[in-house]
Each structure stands twice: as structure tokens, then as C-alpha cells.
């Protein structure tokens, strides 16, 4: 077991676990960084018919290599459609055609509300983060939201410094009412994949640990989360990455190990 777990990195496990959650999904809005490699891995494994949508204005991308960033000529060549960003955000995203929006975060709270704007005070932040990009509208309009990020007490916090992208707000009841009243098409966050495990959201709209990655411990999970951890009564262990999954990441998607080391 230890040998085998030594055979893959925590990042690789995280990416593989995120990719597997996409099984059965049809249209996925791809974010920058980790989501980019996780979705491209899913497309090559559990979800070959997955339609990749890039906010840059591409539907049905067939990237011949792992895109270098959120925009890359390889996502256009051979795609079904390359459209203006107005059309992408208005008709595809706000129009309700996106099944899964994949987001990263600098800070997330127990209800899946996300901060990617600032750490500290908005006017004089200690750290100025990238900001919303498309995250704010993805969180509101995609049918469901997957989050992929590493755990730490700095990122899994009791209270986020700035709400860039709404999750389950103050809890499920409140969130469902507001989403219904405002005519939002999305139901918010459903999955959070970290370097330690896989979380889903319980009836109260709060994050619940459903699966621990091989080698990860409950204690490690608790030590890197800023609120009392909810653990599923039937906590599972995440199946290890397969050789096929590892080879795809290492040989094809990320030979440089930019994301997987």
C-alpha cells in the first residue's frame, strides 16, 4: 500500500478524483489551472463525450494538447464553434446550457461560497487576487458547481474575506429560495475535491467529507479546515489513480508536471 501510494502525488490523486466526478456529465465549463487538466483528463477517460466549453469563446473543444491557459489556439482548431464572449456568456452560460462549472478558489466556506478577489480589506488588501473573471456568473448560472483546491486553514475558512461567487449562501434553505426567486438556473456547489478527499453537500447545504484519499487521514482533514468537519457516516476511501490515468497525466496532459507535482 505505501509503495503504491508513493507511486502518485497528492495533486495527481486530486486531479484524478475530480475527473472521475465528471462521469455522466455532458457540458462542462472549464476553468483555469487544475480544472483545466481535470476536465481534459475526464474527456480522455470517464467522459469521452463531454463537451468542453471555454469562457474564451469555444464550444466543443478538442484540444490536441493541454491548453497553456484559459485561452489557447489548440482549443479553437477542430472545435465545434468559436463564438464571441458575449454569445458564450449570454447564450451558453446564462442561457442555462452548462451542466458543470468547474471553479478553483483562494478561500471557501462550509457552504461553498467562494473568494477569489482579495485577502484582507478590499481597499487595502494584504493580497490582491485575480478577481471574479467568469467565476461569479458561472456560480450563478451553471447547473452545478465543482470546486477543486488544496486544503489548508488559510483556504478553508469559517468566514471568507470577500464573496466573489455565491455558493449555498447561509445554508441550503436560504440558497434554494433565493435561486428560485431570482430565476437562477443553477443549484450551486455539489462537489469539492481536495488533495485529501472528496466532499459533497448535505441537506443543510454544508460540506460533508464523503471520501478520504489513500494516505490521507481524518486528522489531516480536520487540521486543514477552519470549521468543525462534517464526516459521512459511511466514509469511503478514494480508489487510487490507475496506471492509465497516471500515464495520461504524465505523458500526455502535463509532461512538465506543472500541475501534477
Amino acid at each position, binding site marked *: 500500500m505505501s509503495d503504491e501510494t508513493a507511486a502518485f502525488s497528492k495533486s495527481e490523486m486530486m486531479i484524478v478524483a475530480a475527473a472521475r466526478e465528471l462521469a455522466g456529465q455532458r457540458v462542462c465549463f472549464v476553468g483555469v489551472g487544475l480544472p483545466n487538466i481535470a476536465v481534459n483528463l475526464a474527456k480522455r477517460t470517464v467522459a469521452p463525450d463531454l463537451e468542453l466549453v471555454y469562457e474564451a469563446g469555444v464550444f466543443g473543444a478538442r484540444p490536441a494538447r493541454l491548453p497553456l491557459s484559459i485561452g489557447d489556439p489548440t482549443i479553437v482548431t477542430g472545435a465545434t464553434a468559436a463564438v464571441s*464572449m*458575449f454569445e458564450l456568456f449570454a447564450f451558453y452560460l446564462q442561457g442555462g446550457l452548462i451542466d458543470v462549472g468547474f471553479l478553483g478558489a483562494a478561500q471557501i466556506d462550509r457552504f461553498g461560497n467562494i473568494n477569489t478577489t482579495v485577502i484582507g480589506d478590499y481597499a487595502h488588501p494584504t493580497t*490582491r487576487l485575480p478577481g*471574479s*473573471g467568469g467565476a461569479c*456568473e458561472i456560480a450563478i448560472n451553471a447547473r452545478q458547481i465543482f470546486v477543486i483546491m488544496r486544503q489548508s486553514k488559510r483556504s478553508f475558512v469559517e468566514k471568507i474575506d470577500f464573496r466573489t461567487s455565491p455558493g449555498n449562501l447561509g445554508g441550503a434553505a436560504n440558497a434554494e429560495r433565493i435561486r428560485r*426567486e431570482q*430565476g437562477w438556473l443553477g443549484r450551486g456547489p455539489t462537489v469539492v475535491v481536495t488533495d485529501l478527499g472528496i466532499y459533497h453537500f448535505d441537506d443543510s447545504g454544508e460540506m460533508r467529507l464523503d471520501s478520504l484519499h489513500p494516505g490521507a487521514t481524518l486528522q489531516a482533514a480536520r487540521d486543514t479546515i477552519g470549521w468543525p468537519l462534517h464526516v459521512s457516516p459511511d466514509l469511503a476511501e478514494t480508489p487510487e489513480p490507475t496506471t492509465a490515468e497516471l500515464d495520461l497525466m504524465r505523458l500526455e496532459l502535463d509532461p512538465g508536471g506543472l500541475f501534477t507535482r
Partner: protein
Amino acid sequence: MSTSKVATMHDAIAAIVRDGDTVAIEGFTHLISFSAGHEIIRQGRRDLVLARMTPDVIYDQMIAAGVARKLIFSWLGNPGVGGLNAIRRVTEGDHASLELEEYSHFGMVARYTAGAANLPFFPLRSYFETDLPVANPLIRPIESPYGDGTVYAVPPLKPDVTIVHAQRADANGDTQAWGLLGCQKEAAFAAERVIVVVEELVDEAVIRADPNRTIIPGLIVDAVVVEPWGAHPSYVQGAYDRDNRFYLDWDPISRDKAATDSWLAEWVHGLGGRAEYIEKLGSGRLAGLKPSAPAPSGSVDYGEYR
């Protein structure tokens, strides 16, 4: 209609970009006119309000050079690499000296769209239950006149100058681009003045052979600058790839103010223009950025109707 608008980058920037202007160099990861940004630095423009969805390395360089007083944006980063360190130096902590006006991507696209369409606002479903309308009071709620709830509105953005890079244009400024189109069309129609920078100047007949490919008509274009490789280190679909090494190298350079200044001295102030920049980069560096093979669109038939 047949009068040529072709100009050098020096003359176009000198005539069209003024101190204090709101300037939008648009192009979402694709077709970013680094060449125009460098010329604006070279000519020492000041107090510009820079608008751009993704400020990218070009605005990090321009802000490091001191051309701007304010930034209007939606995503502040070095795509695929990390942060924009020169901008962070003037936006973090008590040194925060650069004014920021912040939206989401759709908010920025909607602002240009309202500007292009002469609308007083544009409605969208973003922002509800977020802190963005608190951070930016220009993002305002608006009631549907059909009694079905509230959405948010953003105000029109009408740049004094919009600068876009494209694959080709004719001498009148009729411009065609393919690949990622971002919000260049909206940003150009919203602007008071427009500069188009192209890889290739083509005959009017090339444009008129495929009218559906035209994104910007010469009607709204003030200058056409012909500069192959003018978008380096960003990319041009079908012409060259993103020079990722440049984006990676910029990270350590931009973390150090002195290194940033000497980069600007060497690569911007020390050069006369894009031709010298390309020569300095070297043909080997450029050769490695060419597509691995052509991928032709194929031709369609519009038919003659007499």
C-alpha cells in the same frame, strides 16, 4: 472609402492616444497588441485609464512604466502562470496607488456591448448575493418591468481609444479575424477612436470575398498598422503560438522592480519599434512558435447574383 488609413505604430499612437484617455487594448489571451502597449510606454503617455478584461502581462508592463492612473478589469493575472506582480505592487497594502474598477468577465463584455449599442445600461444575472456591488457601486440592481424579480445592471464603457490586433485588414480598416474573438468587436464599436494592428494588409477584394468574416468595418477605424508578430508573446490563430516561455520569464522579472525597469529599458525604451523587437527576439525563437501544420477552413460559395 478608398482613402488609406495605413500608418506606422509610432504615428498612430502619437495621433490617436492622448494623456488621460481611457484606452482598451482588447483580445482575450489571443491577438493582444503588445506592440501598441510598448509604443504607448515609449511615447510616455500618462494618467491613462486602462480597460481590459484580463490585464495580462501587457498591462503589467504598462503600469510598471507608469502610464496609468486607473485600471478597469475583470480578471487580474498572468494566465496559466500566476499573479501580475507590478500591478500587485501598486494595489496591495498601504501603497495601493492604482485606482481599480472591478467587474466580472460578463460584466465587462456587457459594458462594452452597452457602449457599442448606445444603451444607458446592460442587464445581467451576475452579482446577486456577492460582494462585488459593494466593492463597485456602479454595479446596480434593476427591477424587471414584468414583475419577475431583480437583476443587476452595468453602465456602458466607451473608451476614447480601442486597440485590437487581427489577422488581416484592408487599407480602409475593414478587419477580419478568426479563432477566439473575445470582445474586440464590442470594444471597437464602443470606442471614440479605433486602431487596428494586423499581421497582413490585404486587398479590399479579399475582405469582400467573405463578408461574414468581417468583425470591424473601416467605418469606425482611424488607423491601420501593419506589424507581423505584433501580438507576441500572445498568439495569432494560424500564424503563431503563445510564447509561454515569455509569460513564465515575466514572473521573476516582474517580482523585482529593478529587474522590471531594466527589462523595459532594454525591450521597450531601447528599441525603435516592433521590427527591432522581432529582430532582437531572433528568428530561432519565432520559428519555434509557428503552428505544427496548417489547418485550412475550406472555402464557401456566396454566388454571383446579377
